């Protein structure tokens, strides 16, 4: 029980000290907190904290920068500016690059969408193709228009092919079980 009480006191004191430290960031310091006034440890801590706060604010060390610092920085910046101009005359800003990339992606998606059209679109396309092919000349009429010297050997080959197919079919039918 005693150990628990000690731990409890330690934790509550820690939290109150933490609050006292945080109160330094706020405009109003928690001087009016009665719990702090009742506890001598917290009261001492608060006094030390306020003294430390004053010393930290007033006792800032003076570090003198070298006199050549500014000229050195500006020389480096001038070189950097010249290097940036000479190395990349067509520099894109980051947002412009993003916009270009986005436009390419949108175009690719659009092309993909057109490639995968629904069935109604396909029907309309097939009608268009039928209209186009109807205007083409018929194959028989094309064949009739070919001279006899060219068409005779071809028709002879075709009749021979027909005969072979007919013989093969008769042979296969005869051999059926």
């Amino acid at each position, binding site marked *: 029980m005693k150990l628990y009480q000690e731990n409890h006191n330690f934790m509550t004191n820690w939290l109150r000290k933490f609050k006292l*430290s945080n109160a*330094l*960031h706020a405009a109003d310091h928690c001087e009016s907190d009665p719990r702090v006034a009742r506890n001598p440890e917290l009261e001492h*801590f608060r006094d030390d904290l306020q003294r430390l706060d004053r*010393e930290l604010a007033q006792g800032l060390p003076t570090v003198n920068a070298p006199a050549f610092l500014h000229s050195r920085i500006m020389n480096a910046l001038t070189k950097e500016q010249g290097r940036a101009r000479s190395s990349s005359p067509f520099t894109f800003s980051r947002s412009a690059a993003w916009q270009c990339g986005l436009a390419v992606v949108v175009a690719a998606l659009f092309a993909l969408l057109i490639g995968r059209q629904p069935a109604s679109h396909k029907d309309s396309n097939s009608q268009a193709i039928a209209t186009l092919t109807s205007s083409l000349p018929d194959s028989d009429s094309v064949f009739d228009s070919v001279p006899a010297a060219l068409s005779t050997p071809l028709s002879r080959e075709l009749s021979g092919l027909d005969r072979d197919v007919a013989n093969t079919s008769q042979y296969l039918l005869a051999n059926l079980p």
Partner: protein
Amino acid sequence: MFQEAQSDEALATQAQGGSLTAFEELVLLYEKRIYRFVRDCCGNDTDAVEVTQDTFVKAFQAIAQFDGKHAFAAWLFTIARRKCVDRYRAQRALPDTECLPKPAACLDPSETLSHAEEWQNVWECARELLPESQYQALWLRYAEDMDLPQIALVLRKTRTHVKVLLFRARSRLTKEMRRNRNEAVSRKPQFYDKLVAQI
């Protein structure tokens, strides 16, 4: 006739448009502050000058990425801190600035007390005793007068973590102050005894 002083953010916006003159104004405003900040991290003047220069060159390169919603000071100090860490890593003197204690923190109490006598003010004491992150949080709070969100931005930590860092730093320093005070009180009679004996 008399040109009004422009805010840092307005100058940064002009610098984003490519004005080196506006950026030079920012350099004039911040070069000493950045130098003071990195001087403690680097430990010597030569490195501090180089890190300060690198910080401004990096800021100039990345000025297009500066978001006007945040304070320019916090953005610039963030770069400076990163440059300090980069330098540490490059030199491999300190692999991780967050974890390693200061050499003085390892000293025994008697040695610490003898050091304490040499400390001219509380900042030297802080430099010797506190870890890097706690010291930087204190410095940004008191020397740069930054608020908690800005310190959190520079140190890349949450606000609560910054509060804890400041609290630990203050607790450590108040303890040290108390110890020094007690030591001074206990030494006074010895000092006078010695003085009387000498006389």
